[in-house]
């Protein structure tokens, strides 16, 4: 199967003709990023999973309207975020607000810098870093998730969030300052070996 190395644009072209397998490959390629983006705003895992499904079904229905198939990466995240906003309005959720107020206790670590990195497994380290991100305000969580955790360029982040590039840069700058404070020496120690 040469399909595994197909570009998003090629897969979109096949999916437009009704090729479910091509669409599954798009799903597998992007579902992790979509899920992470929604989880950066919503703590209800079931709700996030519902919205992820909705987003991919909505995308399938509207593939014909995506002019540039290679833009699927941005488009599916944007579609998912819009679906989330619709749902938040409908259910009048205040998930992001409550997270901002640090009422969330599900995955926030007690102190990310408490233990030295050499005492941590890779997954423990990841949990601590994700926990520090989870403590950021909602807008900053989104940009950090998209740009750093999901690896999107800042211009693409601006497209997903439908805000100016300057807004993305300033949110990232504030998030970076906060994360440097939270992760402090933990960050230095951990990255010395790899850098």
């Amino acid at each position, binding site marked *: 199967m040469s399909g595994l190395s197909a570009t998003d644009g090629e897969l979109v072209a096949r999916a437009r*003709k009704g090729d479910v397998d091509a669409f599954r490959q798009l799903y597998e390629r992007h579902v992790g990023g979509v899920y992470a983006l929604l989880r950066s705003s919503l703590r209800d895992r079931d709700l996030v999973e519902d919205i992820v499904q909705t987003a991919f*079904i909505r995308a399938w*229905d509207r593939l014909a309207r995506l*002019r540039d198939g290679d833009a699927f990466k941005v*488009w599916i995240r944007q579609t998912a975020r819009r679906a989330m906003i619709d749902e938040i*309005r409908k259910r009048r959720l205040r998930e992001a607000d409550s997270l901002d107020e640090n009422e969330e206790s599900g995955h926030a670590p007690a102190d990310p810098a408490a233990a030295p990195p050499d005492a941590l497994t890779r997954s423990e380290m990841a949990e601590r870093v994700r926990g520090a991100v989870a403590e950021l305000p909602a807008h900053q969580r989104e940009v950090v998730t998209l740009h750093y955790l999901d690896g999107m360029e800042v211009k693409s982040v601006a497209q997903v969030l439908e805000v100016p590039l300057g807004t993305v840069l300033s949110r990232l*700058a504030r998030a970076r300052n906060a*994360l440097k404070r939270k992760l402090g020496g933990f960050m230095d120690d951990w990255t010395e070996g790899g850098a």
Partner: protein
Amino acid sequence: MRCDEARRWLDGSADEDMAEDVAAHVERCADCAHHYAEGDRLAGLLRSVGPAPMERDLWDGIQGQLRRRRSPWAWLLAPAAGLAAGALLAMLLLPPVTPSDPGALPEPVESAAFPAQAGDDPSALEEDAQVLAWHASAAAGGGLVDPWSAAIAVSALPSGEEDPS
């Protein structure tokens, strides 16, 4: 703005007033864009962590819905399409979109998006038709459905910024 000013901002200063200037500089200056993309130790740490893994594969649920649709165009053939023929035509007349064109991206689709009961979904085709009918009636003021005015109204709908219900 000079490169050293832009980089000082990108590396830590978060003065909101300068964000647009920095953005404009980064758009023009490949060196600073590269500098930013390369990142630093914090960026390296965050990238090495990546997003939290999903706990459940959602493909089966998605595929089940796709089967009911068969192809992106299956809904055109559904009997329910007759409910909103004008709106369906309007959808066809809509220009294709790109993510950089947020105003023309998929508008909120309320009832089709979140079935009331996960185990007993109403027909997705019927839902789509209902949503299209809603758009059409909104465009025509609840009266005559005119494909052109429907197309204009649908493409002009806010991008999830308002709840039309």
